[in-house]
């Protein structure tokens, strides 16, 4: 394990990364209408400031030898009770640095884009306040030096997503969607709380350093329990099975929010958590297997759901589920997966943000419509959006030499080396990705016009297209840059470790198979969505699989039947019990005594007021008497 030095010089400015957006959020949310005129610019400026600090810290880190890069910026002690000690201290190492660059960099582009996207919205200042809060929380999450402090960022991300998903407060569907996201995330938080409780009880510390030093010698039971508790937490934040249901509803927020949630922040938090906790999972193979299983289920389920959605944002949301599933699978593979998971996560940050911003650009030009059945032929009027979205599309499905090819291929290779079943699932996932992404691209940009009569699509302003162009460049180049000469592997190795996957299949053969499956996915999409006309309303006679996928594979129906309905019944019955049984007993006893005493003492008036008057005078009398006695 690498040593962590106390922050000095420029690294003692690590806190600025978080303080800038926090200050932005406080000013924007606390100042009221006064800052309406320039609030959005302030919101962009704070993130830009953070990004500059991040780059400076990164350059500084590059100048040090690989085992001297981690620093700890101690600010103050948050809680200290006996052995339970939690500092507010920021640990900046290679893993958190990678996330910080992603969060501030992609976050900045999304902020800039949102200036244009939210133009004319009454609440734009408030919106940027929430965005700043989101970025600040996510930065705290990846910079915390203990699980307890991480929890603060973790919940902050939950709060910010709640505020942003429910941003359109007067829309009837936004409130429930936001609440659902928060509540489901809190189910995951149970895992986080339990993990912290177990850690403290077992190790007497909740800092990363302390826990990771103790984990190897702990009993298997304890590390497995911690591992599964952390997995539950990760499932909540990263929308993994069985806590995936909030993500598809989270589309209620404005589109830049979706880009932020899906690319730079929030859903990547679960992957970060497990990668960060690698010393625990390394000694808890059962928990690791749990991570793999969750990842595999989600990557397939997300792909299936994405293939059946007509709403462009929901289709992309399914795609995120699936992509994060890939990352979870990779971190579940242990030392032969962490680096690949982070590589895919970073590349995904570029292309998924680009895809969402592209979708937002389409909506911007189409009166906020989202139904892809009423899109088509947009390439003729939105050239830049088509190009950037197209590059993101090619990147995510893994066409060489774009980002997805370099980063997803290695995950498949590593999965196949672990177990052919897992590997095959990953290959199928890649095929599904090719299918649903082609479907989205064809239905939106190619084919004949199916527009409603009131739309006049047009390209978006430069403030929106410029970030899309930058993200598209990232989608093309990031994979190569990260994987060339094992750049990322050498960067992360001191934190996560690395072992070369050792599979039976030659990598080149596997790449060939994967590309063939991807090609199959594209061909299927061409046949179904390019050669055949697309009905303007969704056909109702569809296969069982399609109708299941349209209903999110019955995830909501399951939750409703198993948790919501019985929960409602339980609360209603308990309210009844409380009013009738418990309070009834109290009132019954009181009435009984009252009746009894009324018969015994007819002198009593039955008015509490006169009782209390008597009591008051009695008490006063007692006090006066006591004073007299004392004197």
């Amino acid at each position: 394990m690498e040593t962590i030095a106390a922050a000095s010089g420029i690294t003692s400015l690590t806190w600025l990364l978080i303080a800038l957006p926090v200050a932005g959020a406080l000013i924007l949310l606390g100042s009221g209408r006064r800052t309406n005129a320039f609030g959005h610019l302030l919101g962009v400026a704070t993130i830009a400031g953070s990004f500059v600090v991040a780059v400076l810290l990164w350059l500084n880190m590059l100048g040090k030898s690989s085992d001297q890069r981690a620093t700890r910026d101690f600010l103050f002690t948050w809680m200290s009770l006996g052995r339970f000690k939690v500092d507010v201290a920021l640990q900046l190492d290679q893993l958190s640095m990678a996330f910080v660059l992603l969060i501030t960099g992609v976050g900045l582009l999304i902020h800039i884009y949102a200036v244009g996207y939210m133009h004319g919205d009454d609440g734009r200042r408030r919106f940027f306040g929430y965005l700043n809060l989101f970025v600040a929380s996510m930065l705290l999450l990846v910079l915390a030096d203990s699980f307890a402090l991480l929890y603060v960022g973790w919940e902050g991300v939950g709060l910010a997503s709640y505020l942003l998903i429910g941003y359109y407060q007067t829309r009837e569907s936004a409130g429930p969607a936001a609440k659902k996201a928060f509540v489901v995330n809190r189910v995951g938080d149970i895992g986080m709380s339990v993990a912290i409780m177990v850690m403290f009880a077992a190790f007497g510390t909740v800092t990363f350093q302390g826990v990771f030093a103790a984990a190897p010698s702990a009993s298997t039971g304890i590390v497995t329990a911690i591992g599964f508790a952390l997995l539950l937490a990760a499932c909540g934040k990263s929308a993994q099975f069985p806590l995936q249901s909030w993500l598809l509803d989270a589309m209620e927020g404005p589109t830049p929010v979706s880009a932020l949630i899906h690319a730079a922040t929030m859903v990547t938090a679960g992957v970060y958590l497990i990668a960060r906790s690698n010393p625990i999972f390394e000694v808890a193979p059962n928990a690791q297997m749990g991570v793999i299983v969750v990842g595999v289920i989600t990557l397939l389920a997300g792909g299936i759901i994405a293939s059946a959605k007509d709403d462009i944002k929901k289709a992309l949301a399914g795609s995120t589920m699936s992509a994060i599933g890939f990352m979870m699978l990779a971190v579940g593979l242990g030392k032969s997966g962490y680096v690949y998971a982070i590589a895919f996560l970073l590349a995904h940050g570029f292309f998924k943000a680009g895809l969402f911003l592209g979708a937002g650009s389409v909506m911007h030009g189409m009166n906020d419509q989202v139904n892809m059945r009423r899109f088509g032929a947009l390439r003729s009027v939105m050239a830049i959006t088509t190009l950037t979205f197209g590059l993101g599309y090619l990147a995510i499905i893994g066409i060489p030499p774009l980002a997805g090819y370099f980063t997803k291929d290695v995950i498949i290779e590593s999965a196949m080396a672990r177990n052919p079943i897992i590997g095959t699932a990953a290959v199928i996932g890649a095929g599904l990705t090719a299918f649903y992404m082609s479907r989205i691209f064809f239905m939106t940009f190619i084919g004949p016009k199916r527009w409603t009569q009131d739309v006049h699509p047009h390209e978006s302003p430069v403030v929106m297209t410029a970030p899309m162009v930058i993200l598209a460049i990232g989608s093309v180049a990031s994979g190569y840059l990260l994987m060339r000469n094992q750049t990322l592997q050498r960067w992360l190795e001191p934190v996560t470790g690395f072992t070369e996957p050792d599979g039976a299949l030659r990598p080149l053969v596997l790449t060939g198979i994967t590309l063939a499956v991807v090609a199959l996915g594209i061909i299927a999409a061409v046949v179904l969505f390019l050669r055949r006309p697309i009905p303007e309303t969704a056909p109702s006679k569809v296969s069982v699989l399609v109708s299941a996928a349209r209903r999110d594979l019955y995830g909501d129906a399951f939750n409703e039947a198993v948790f919501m309905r019985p929960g409602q019944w339980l609360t209603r019955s308990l309210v009844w019990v409380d009013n009738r049984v418990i309070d009834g007993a109290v009132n019954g006893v009181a009435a009984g005594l009252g009746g009894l005493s009324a018969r015994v003492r007819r002198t009593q008036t039955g008015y509490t007021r006169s009782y209390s008057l008597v009591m008051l005078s009695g008490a006063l009398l007692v006090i006066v008497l006591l004073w007299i006695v004392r004197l």
Partner: protein
Amino acid sequence: MKNLPWLLIAGLVPLAGTVLIAVLPRKFEFRARWIALASSLVTLGVVIAMATQFSVGGTQKFQFVTSYKWIPAFGVNFTLGVDGVGLVLVCLAACLVPFVLLASWRDVQPGGSVKSYFGLMLVLQTVVIWVFSALDVFLFYLLFEAMLIPAYLLIGRFGGAQRSYAATKFLLYSLFGGLVMLAALIGLYVASQTLLGSGTFDFQTLSSLQINSGLQNLLFLGFFLAFAIKAPLWPLHTWLPDAAAEATPGTAVLLVALMDKVGTFGMIRYCLQLFPDASRTFAFTISILAIISIIYGALVAIGQTDIMRLISYTSVSHFGFIILGIFAFTNQSQTGSVFYMVAHGFSTAALFLVAGMMIARGKSRNIADYSGVFKVAPLLAGFVLIAGLSGLALPGLASFPGEFLVLVGSYLRYPALAIIATVAIVLSAVYILWLYQRVATGSPRGVVVGTFGEIRRREVLALSSIVALMIGLGVYPQVLTRVIEPTVKTTITRVGAVELAPTQIKDQVDKQVSKK
């Protein structure tokens, strides 16, 4: 400075305010508010000045002790003094009242007496400050009962339609608890007479007695019953929703945020320290009741249709956490509990007050009558959300360190119970956010039309001050925990519970590291 009778003064200032208000001519009645506010601010100043003199971890267990002979025949003295726990609760009482007064400015309906409303609030403050600092058990008992009088009058004279029923229920319930406690008090006196030769009510003397365990159990239960009613612990909680819902918001705050704390305070100060063996005996049973309170309170809160009742039930759930932490007997859990008492004071105050402001505008406590408050009054809605977020223990706000420390500390003693308690993490999100969703989001409907307006500057001042305190405590809880911890340590030592440091694994690791 330290020898000033700080606690006596801190209680006399509001009393002086009451006297001033009482002699106020009727035509200047409205001035009562200003007198009350001024006196509460002076009280706050006195308490802050006192707190700066407190020496943390000093050799003296109790500080600022002042004692006057009262009834020498029975060994009763008027003795005041605070330890760390008492100090933070006195601070809570001093901090909350000015904001409550500010927010209650227009609570008195036309025809009601402004003089008595504000006068009674100040009397209540005096009693509460002294009840937290009494070092004579008899004095404590007297104040514990005396507290009921202003509270009863505040509920019964200034509340909603069902106020008489609620006030009577509150009074009878509390009197019942008090009566049982009186019996236990006499028993305690007799026991001290047997052990010492002459009876005493002096807390410090009594808290070093070794009463035989059979008697301890009985006396413990006598005190505990009164405290459990006040706290309130399931199943003795049903007076609270009625009282809090029918009272004015300001009274509800004093009732739930302040007076109920006397219950949990009493458990730590009296149950644990006077009857340590009995405390150990009953700890597990009480912890089970606490868990039931946590889950049950949260579930019933979800099912409420009345805003004020909903908030009351969330308090039942939170008091469950506090009691669980007290009886888990670990440094972290009990310090967390005391911290939570203060934090819950502020967050519940914020919730009741902001709900009261909404109800004053909508003239209804029924959640279903509201919709879309955000559209009409975004500031009001914002405060509903922030107060609610503190209620669901969001990190960064005051409740979180309390709840988190209780969970972490309780897990050491009762792992299974602590894990069950984490379910409340989800339930609290449901009751708060569902409430917010119903009243604040969507388009304005029901009572949220017409004259329904934004909150005024005075109300913003009261709420934002409380929010600032909540954020301050959430970010820097050490300011309180440092004061609380030494007291908790001595309490746990007195209880004689086996100390549960984290398991040996840590030590093994230490050894291995040192070997390397």
